[in-house]
């Protein structure tokens, strides 16, 4: 099978997985945007050799398929950076939650003790 078709099928398969994940609620819609966009661009570029050659020519790329790599690489880097940022953000949130939880628990414990002391005094 021609490599063009093979990569196209892989991309279509991947596209279906993305859509199915969104449908099942595993992947949030806003997170799927960049994946859908990447799939579409890669799909179109891998099917139409003329378009790929034309774009490569404009950009001054001697070997046209490397444009595919470039595009794939850029989207991957953007996605990884976005993920790192989100991890940092989540990290902060988890820290705040952990602290707040511990502080509340301490307060609850103290209230329990106070209650017990009051009860003892009554007896």
């Amino acid at each position, binding site marked *: 099978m021609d490599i063009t078709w093979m990569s196209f099928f892989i991309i279509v398969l991947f596209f279906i997985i993305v859509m199915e994940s969104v449908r099942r609620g595993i992947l949030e819609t806003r997170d799927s945007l960049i994946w859908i966009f990447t799939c579409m661009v890669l799909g179109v570029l891998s099917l139409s050799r003329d378009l790929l050659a034309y774009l490569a020519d404009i950009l001054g790329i001697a070997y046209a398929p490397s444009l595919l790599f470039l595009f794939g690489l850029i989207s991957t880097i953007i996605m990884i950076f976005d993920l790192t940022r989100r991890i940092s953000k989540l990290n902060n949130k988890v*820290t705040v939650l*952990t*602290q707040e*939880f*511990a*502080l509340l*628990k*301490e307060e609850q414990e103290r209230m329990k003790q106070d209650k017990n002391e009051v009860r003892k005094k009554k007896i």
Partner: protein
Amino acid sequence: MDIKNVPKTAIIVPAYNEEDNIAKTLEGLMALKNELDNVEICVVNDGSQDRTKEIVETFEVVQINLPQNLGIGGAVQTGYKYACNHDFEIAVQFDADGQHNIQDFVNLIQPIMNQEQDMVIGSRFLQKTDYRGSRVRRIGIYYFYLVLKLLTRKKFTDPTSGYRAINRAVIELFAHHYPRDYPEPEVLMHLSRKGMRIKEVPANMQSRQGGASSITTWKSFYYFGKVTLSILMSSIVKEY
């Protein structure tokens, strides 16, 4: 000790797997607490897996148990949040491993009680003390001294010291924002930029009594890089 009436003061003791040292440290602090009014000891147990929790429970102190390990920055900040919520006027950070000396406590909080300073740091190098750290450690401390001097034009002879006292204004600031790992030098940059008054007083410190330091040889490379970067970063970041 010449003063008895201190404003509401919290001694924050972050502890992570400190079963070897915590009892001794807390005994010392309890003696201090009995001597001074208005002092509360607050141990932040940073998700220890050993018997730290059980040992701390035998003392009459406030114990805050983090359900998971957050690292020194997150643990200390929990203490500052506690101090902030319960209207403490002064907070003192005190290491659980027994390297800090309670004899220096009054010297540390005195400038804050007089409202002359916002933060006071116990320094091992301001005067000649008995402190004997490894050479690498002292080179590291000197390096941060140079970096901070370059950026803040102020001299912090012991920028990594964890023995520090702060007033209400700084407590509120720390409750809102505190760096995560290896926070000590970074905080100095942050506070200098805010125009806070910081002073060092001489303090004696023992080399650690037992347990393991949070900074191992391999981690020290990461430590240098991370702290340098975060000092540089906090000299340019947006004010929070």
